């Protein structure tokens, strides 16, 4: 299908003609809802006890305690903003970039803590979070997959020819 074929001159990024593609946007939305839901839950715990979260970040020994505390001030809000962006289709790709980047960072931090033999809380949802270990890495990997699917299965918008 090209410009010459459409009387209005509108180019459509082609959707698959297969009936199977009807479920993809639904799965995409569900993935976005699920990932955002998880992040809202984690953010709530961090905002309820921000000083504990600052301590939890510091325990990873990736930066100075001062820098960890500064990071703890903004990170929950980054997560909240990214989760909200993921819900709205217009900003979903931007939200996915942020969430994907943060999840990769969390996975790397936990892997590093495990390699150092640190016995610490993951700090995932504020105090009471589980230990930084394989469960954390597994969960974050699943969330990363969900984030990717939420974007890959997005229903694409019509684009007007210039």
């Amino acid at each position, binding site marked *: 299908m090209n410009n010459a074929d459409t009387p209005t001159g509108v180019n459509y990024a082609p959707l698959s003609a297969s009936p199977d593609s009807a479920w993809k946007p639904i799965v995409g939305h569900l993935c976005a809802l699920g990932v955002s839901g998880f992040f809202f839950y984690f953010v709530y715990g961090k905002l309820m006890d*921000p000083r504990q979260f600052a*301590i939890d970040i510091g325990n990873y020994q990736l930066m100075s305690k001062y820098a960890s505390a500064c990071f703890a001030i903004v990170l929950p809000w980054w997560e909240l903003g990214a989760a909200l962006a993921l819900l709205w289709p217009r900003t979903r*790709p931007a939200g996915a970039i942020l969430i994907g980047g943060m999840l990769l960072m969390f996975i790397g931090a936990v892997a590093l803590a495990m390699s150092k033999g640190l016995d610490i809380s993951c700090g995932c949802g504020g105090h009471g979070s589980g230990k930084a270990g394989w469960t954390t890495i597994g969960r974050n990997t699943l969330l990363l997959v969900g984030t990717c699917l939420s974007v890959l299965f997005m229903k694409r918008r019509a684009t007007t020819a210039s």
Partner: protein
Amino acid sequence: MLSHVKTAILILLLTSGVGVTVNAMRTTGKIEPSKFESKRPILPDATGGQANPTQPADGSGTQPAAPADPHVAVLSEVIAQFGQPNVYFVDARKPDEYAQGHIKGSINLPSTALFENIERVIQYVPQPDLVIVYCGGGNCEASHTVADALRNQFGYVNVKVYVKGWEELSTSPKFAELTEVGG
């Protein structure tokens, strides 16, 4: 793709501003980065005893031993201070580990729920008194975390970390005398 990256950067900037503003306006739980500096102790020497600066370790007079770190407690000091007035022990491990065994009279202040449980310490421990914090020993960070918070956030001036912690204590001949189960 570039527009999405720009949107992502915009979200980061906006939410950073919100975060800083909200933190500044907090009346409780405010993060003050200057209060999170850590005074990690210099580990004691391999013999486990506090190094004495006036007596060289090998007696030869040629190699002075490392000075004692005022923030570190060793087993001999823990034994000596046990039961003394104005000395308190704080167990930084999780509640289930504390329940399985702890120093008699110690206060459980888990590092993973520090601010939630700090009243246990504030209510009973005067700030000038000696506080010795311990956890599992080895790579356990909990005792350092709790000690830093007691010094920086809550004004305790005399805090030491028993670095080798429960791991060493459990092998001590004084173990049964110093510890109890439950709580």
